[in-house]
């Protein structure tokens, strides 16, 4: 596999990068939705992030990337007890993919040659403990969306078909990207994404030139480019690992809980998932910043990305919901004094 573009070499797109880092710190946040124009580095960022993350340890040959031999599903016949390390999986779910490919299906090879009913795992199995990336998620066919909703919710893929009755863990960070001009996302699916960011092509010319410059440098001499960015990527990785470690110890004062609830009430976001995600994201953000407890500035830093897609939306509202979130945050917490980061 060729080495993806280094994460730290991505120019700008700070909100997208920080959203992705937060999901890397706490995969329970539940995925990122990236909406924006084509060719603004969405898929580059996903691949880069996965390459940046520390490798995972998994049982050799386990189709669902289990960490311990005991976790391997019984249908998989994993015999090896050895654990190997491998990069965090990033699985692409292309448009028009068949249901069989997603959930897995009867293994035709074994059925034909040995007359056995065996399960051939699909993309969901491969994405376990990693990332499932869906480009143009808003154009995904409805029946595939239904499948994903169910699995993303339960963290388990249940296959009941062709006489097979199989279940296996499928916990992954869902990353979707798309262009809102081309179609809306079903609200149910929208809700499953923890964070949502809007990316735009930078308007600053210098920045644009720098993007192109780096990309061409990467294309021309990959090894040298990677060498150049290795130190920065390593520093990022270290910081993510440290934040992961610190995460359980982050304190959540009562005041922060109140703030979350009040913010969500003021915005009228549907359900409680908004509060939960907001809090989780704020905790991850605090861990990332190296702080010991969740403070208002952490909430402020993640409010827009955690809530903008959950507002009861007026389909005709032109102004981005992100602006609405920011406005309410400013009203509640007072205007911003220092830069969030």
């Amino acid at each position, binding site marked *: 596999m060729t080495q993806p573009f280094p994460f730290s070499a991505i120019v700008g797109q700070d909100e997208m990068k920080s959203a992705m880092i937060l999901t890397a710190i706490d995969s329970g946040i539940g995925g990122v939705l990236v909406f924006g124009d*084509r*060719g603004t580095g969405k898929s580059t960022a996903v691949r880069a992030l996965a390459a940046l993350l520390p490798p995972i340890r998994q049982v050799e040959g386990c189709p669902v990337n289990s960490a311990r031999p005991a976790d391997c599903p019984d249908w998989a016949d994993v015999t090896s007890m050895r654990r190997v390390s491998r990069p965090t999986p990033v699985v692409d779910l292309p448009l028009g*993919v068949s249901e069989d490919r997603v959930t897995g299906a009867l293994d035709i090879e074994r059925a034909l040659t040995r007359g056995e009913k065996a399960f051939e795992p699909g993309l969901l199995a491969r994405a376990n403990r990693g990332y499932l990336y869906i480009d143009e998620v808003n*154009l995904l066919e409805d029946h595939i969306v239904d499948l994903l909703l169910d699995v993303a919710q339960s963290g388990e893929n249940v296959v009941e078909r062709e006489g097979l009755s199989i279940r296996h863990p499928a916990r992954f960070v869902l990353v979707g990207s798309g262009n809102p001009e081309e*179609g809306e996302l079903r609200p149910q699916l929208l809700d499953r994404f923890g964070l949502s960011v809007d990316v735009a092509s930078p308007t600053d010319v210098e920045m644009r*030139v720098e993007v*192109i410059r780096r*990309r061409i440098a990467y294309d021309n001499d990959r090894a040298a480019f990677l060498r150049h960015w290795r130190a920065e990527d390593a520093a990022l990785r270290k910081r993510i690992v440290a934040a992961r470690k610190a995460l359980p110890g982050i304190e959540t004062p009562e005041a922060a809980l109140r703030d979350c609830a009040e913010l969500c009430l003021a915005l009228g976001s549907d359900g409680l998932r908004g509060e939960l995600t907001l809090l989780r994201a704020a905790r991850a953000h605090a861990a990332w910043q190296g702080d010991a407890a969740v403070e208002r500035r952490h909430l402020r830093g993640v409010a827009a990305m955690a809530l903008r897609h959950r507002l009861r939306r007026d389909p005709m509202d*032109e102004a981005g919901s992100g602006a609405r979130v920011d406005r309410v945050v400013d009203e509640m917490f007072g205007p911003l004094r220092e830069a969030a980061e």
Partner: protein
Amino acid sequence: MTPGERALVAVRLMRLDPMGLGGLWLRARPGPARDAVLACLHIKRAARIHPGMDDDALFGGIDLAATLGAGALRHRAGIIGRSETLCLAMAERCPPGLAARLGQAIDAGQCGLVAIDEGAEEGEALPAALAERLGLFVSLDGVSRADIPTGSVIEDGAARERLPAIRLDDHKLARLTVAAAELGIASFRAPLLAARAARGLAALEGREAVGEADLALAANLVFAHRAGPQEEPDPAEDREETEEPSEHSPQRPEDSLPPEDVLVEAVRAALPADVLSRLAAGRAVTAASGGRGSGAARRGNRRGRPLPARPGRGSDARIDIVATLRAAAPWQTIRRRDAESHRLVHVRPGDIRRKRFEETSDRLVIFLVDASGSAAASRLAEAKGAVELMLAEAYSRRDHVALIGFRGENAELLLPPTRSLVQTKRRLAALPGGGGTPLAAALRAGAELGLRQRGQGYAPSLAILTDGRANITLDGRADRQAAGEEARQAAVLIAASGITGIVVDTGRRPSRELAELAQAMAVPYLPLPRATAEALSGVVSSALARP
């Protein structure tokens, strides 16, 4: 440079560096000119693909014939990976799934793609996912066989060797990037591809570094079809920009960079004006329909939600071979034991499974909005408000909507079928008022769109908002009587086609003519004056929900 020569340069670039450039978007109807261009590309027969191709053929899979024959699993290599350059015929009908997969293959550097786009009608365009990734664009509209230089098919082997060493200095790279931004191209793929093309051109010319001419030509080949305002601009602003591109540049703050107007000019000069404007329209279409040039709704219909395959053989049902084999597979050992003849795979009639799809039609509401002077004077704003409410309704039902505005002399398709409300809202808000009422033209346009979309699997209905004072005939004359008669004929046509709908009278007081017109159309008639917008929306949605 003539269009023919330009096409040939693109072809040579494609042969030189298919993977680096992503591909070539060739807009051409069948004909000798296209054949000549394709012949230069030397595409192998095996590398031709069509929009109906399935994954197994493209990416490889189980070779069923061989598997059955041998009784052991036989894989078949896919087309992608076997050939550097693929050729996709009828690319405008490429379904989004295939476009996505091809896009992935291009991104991964597995192949370059020549997409032959025969799109003729409005709404037919290359899927945006592909258009974005294909570096070069060539249109052969109006190019004849004689325009294509013959005998110029040079083997570019030496250029291939030169290519990796070609230098492109930072300064020129910056200029390409700035020019792309200047042209309103948001994507970063464009300048990257242009840089690649510039290096390819230098290699073809035998230069060691990219020269000025390479730069201009590369910008021309890569940017021309992407250029244009990204956002929906005011029509006035748009015109200004296309007519006087140089006017725009002094506003830029980056004076340190050299003028890339040369490049911008090169791009503007690349194509005849009408091609540019048509491409811009095509881009709007692509953006609106999510790049499903072949009709968004087909996704919902032709393939449908797959249902489990069922045993039995229908007369016209497609046999689901995989499901059939799956059904037979567990029995193989037993059957082999009991079999009289020695066969490798024992498939019995009872194993045969048919494919089934659940077919539901996506609904399409076509809004015909009267923006004539008389309507504008009375209640255009209210009509727009009503349309917005209906749009919100359509959103919650996940209907598709299309928008046709009519004023002055004709009706105009403002928005092809889409689910994007943002776009619809924007187009609607931008719809100016004034001019005559070409009602007949509007009805015809609505009916034609409806019928065309029905052919693609939508269930169309018309929502007509007008004050009914038809006064412009189909040929643009101001003749109230003839216009009224033509409108009636169009209404009869709609009734005959069985398209459902509703007529909303936005006039100050209900008009008898319009009520009769609605009757001729066999659709309900609703005078707006007494209705509040909410009430209107309710009535309309129930009228449209009529089967």
